């Protein structure tokens, strides 16, 4: 019985809770039990917050008894450990923030708290969200619930693995170059990066501020739509959050995509696994069968998105990470002079990938190189955005693979930073143009999930949710339980 409680959707859980067939406390205990059984294998969490969660679940049960119920009251949720929370440590996967306690909640966390959600823990991430495998976490890697020898993707690999494994019903992550969509794809679940400006970043540990967005993970498109609705909207604390009304996203999940125009890339990049290409082709035929039309589009500058990203993102990161100075919070080396203290604190506190990106960004912004790298990259960013503007005059959404391959093996790409960066070749373009993107499971290759991505027009999350939902309902990929979960549960 308890085992089944860890495969519920939000709507199924809501019905059980509201009919008082299951209490929020029982629902939580089932998830804590799942965590106890699976964490020794997966390591999806940096911190499990069982005590906080138990108090929240008890409170949720009181609210349910009083009829004071919102969509997420009593729902177990995991939070990527780059989101500030007042009642748990926030590490960003880095030694430099070990022991840090935020004096405030991120706006998205506060919104979920007000709804009466239950926070089961803070999930593992590449250090400062810089990575594509969760292997850059200072707290050790997370493993993929489909195959423990493989990475869950990254940087939000902990959130993706936790949801795939039934350790939480849904989770939040952050996506700067694919860090929600790519791990959702590798773990066989749904992940959405909202439009830049849709969700407040107040209380998100900053990586690259012109690219970062917070977004939801779920095992179904409907769960992702519900969680997106709960976190979206303008926030006076984040002047980049846009004052636009937030639609009721679940209203768009009609299953009807007749007449929808889906663009596919004519100039697809090299290096795509043929099994991924085949699964995407199958998915496009399914979508056509549902009444959508598939039309070729060109994004002439898409192959420049990756090099552009690896100038802009590290540049912004080098500025954002200047705040870790051993003075205000976090690690401090305790050296005698201010300069020595900066050098030693940052040298000891940051891991190799973060150091690499700080160096790269500092180089691109330094005198003599600023125009050739940073300004040039900003101009290419304009070209990339214009490509999408042109494409969206002809189609409603663009469909492409989430990743060129399925989940790779641990250690396979850690020695070659460029190989690791190439994992994000299909997710980075949406960040460069600020557009919403969703990853939805669309097949298996070598027993591992393949993922289909839809990119939509700015602030049109509703349409990518609609098409992803219609596809999901016409297929059964989202219903497969990851084999490691089945094995661990079966060997009880």
């Amino acid at each position, binding site marked *: 019985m308890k085992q089944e409680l860890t495969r519920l959707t939000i709507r199924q859980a809501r019905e059980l809770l509201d009919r008082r067939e299951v209490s929020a406390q029982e629902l939580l205990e089932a998830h804590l039990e799942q965590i106890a059984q699976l964490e020794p294998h997966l390591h999806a969490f940096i911190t499990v917050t069982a005590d906080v969660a138990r108090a929240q679940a008890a409170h949720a049960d009181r609210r349910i008894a009083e009829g004071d119920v919102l969509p997420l009251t009593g729902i177990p949720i995991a939070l990527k450990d780059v989101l500030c929370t007042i009642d748990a440590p926030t590490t960003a996967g880095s030694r430099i923030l070990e022991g840090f306690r935020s004096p405030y909640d991120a706006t998205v966390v506060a919104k979920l708290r007000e709804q009466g959600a239950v926070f089961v823990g803070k999930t593992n991430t590449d250090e400062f969200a810089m990575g594509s495998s969760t292997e850059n976490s200072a707290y050790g890697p997370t493993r993929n619930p489909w195959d423990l020898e493989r990475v869950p993707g990254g940087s939000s690999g902990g959130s993706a693995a936790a949801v795939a494994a039934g350790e939480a019903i849904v989770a939040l992550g952050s996506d700067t170059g694919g860090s929600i969509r790519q791990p959702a794809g590798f773990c066989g679940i749904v992940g959405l990066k909202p439009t830049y400006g849709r969700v407040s970043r107040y209380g998100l540990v900053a990586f690259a501020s012109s690219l970062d967005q917070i977004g939801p993970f779920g095992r179904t498109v409907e769960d992702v739509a519900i969680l997106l609705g709960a976190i979206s909207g303008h926030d006076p604390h984040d002047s980049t959050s846009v004052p636009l009304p937030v639609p009721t996203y679940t209203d768009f999940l009609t299953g009807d995509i007749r007449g929808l125009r889906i663009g596919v890339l004519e100039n697809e990049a090299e290096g795509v696994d043929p099994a991924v290409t085949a699964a995407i082709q199958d998915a496009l035929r399914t979508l056509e069968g549902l009444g959508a039309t598939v039309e070729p589009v060109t994004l002439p500058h898409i192959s420049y998105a990756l090099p552009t990203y690896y100038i802009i993102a590290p540049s912004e990161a080098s500025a954002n990470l200047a705040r870790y100075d051993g003075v*205000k919070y976090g690690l401090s080396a305790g050296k005698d*002079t201010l300069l020595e203290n900066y050098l030693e604190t940052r040298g000891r506190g940051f891991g190799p990938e973060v*150091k690499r990106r700080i160096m790269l960004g*500092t*180089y691109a912004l330094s005198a003599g190189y600023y125009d050739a790298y940073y300004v040039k990259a900003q101009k290419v960013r304009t070209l990339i955005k214009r490509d999408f503007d042109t494409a969206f005059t002809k189609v409603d959404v663009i469909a492409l693979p989430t990743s060129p391959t399925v989940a790779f093996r641990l250690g396979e790409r850690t020695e070659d930073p460029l190989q690791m960066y190439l994992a994000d070749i299909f997710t980075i373009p949406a960040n460069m143009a600020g557009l919403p993107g969703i990853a939805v499971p669309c097949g298996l290759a070598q027993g591992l999930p393949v993922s289909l991505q839809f990119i939509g027009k700015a602030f049109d999350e509703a349409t990518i949710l609609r098409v992803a939902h219609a596809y999901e309902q016409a297929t059964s990929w989202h219903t497969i339980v990851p084999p490691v979960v089945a094995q661990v549960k079966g060997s009880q």
Partner: protein
Amino acid sequence: MLSREIVDHIAMLARLGLTEEERERMRIQLSSILDHVSRIQELDTEAIPPTAQVIELHDVMRDDVVQPSLPQAAVLQNAPAAENGYFRVNAVLEQS
């Protein structure tokens, strides 16, 4: 290929203390990444304006109203060293 002098200079600008081994590895890895990203130089962007961010908001202003902020104790709760309500740091300028 980047020179050691450049790597040392950038590390100092970034206030990043690196070991000898890290500097040599950084020199090789950054050179390879810079080779890759330099592909963008082949594009003609003479007439293209730069994009710093993609949303069409400009000069977001609010009314100048006094609002509660974090209590001083909360702001200092994570400080490695604090004194009399301030962050304590080493002297920046020495007394002559």
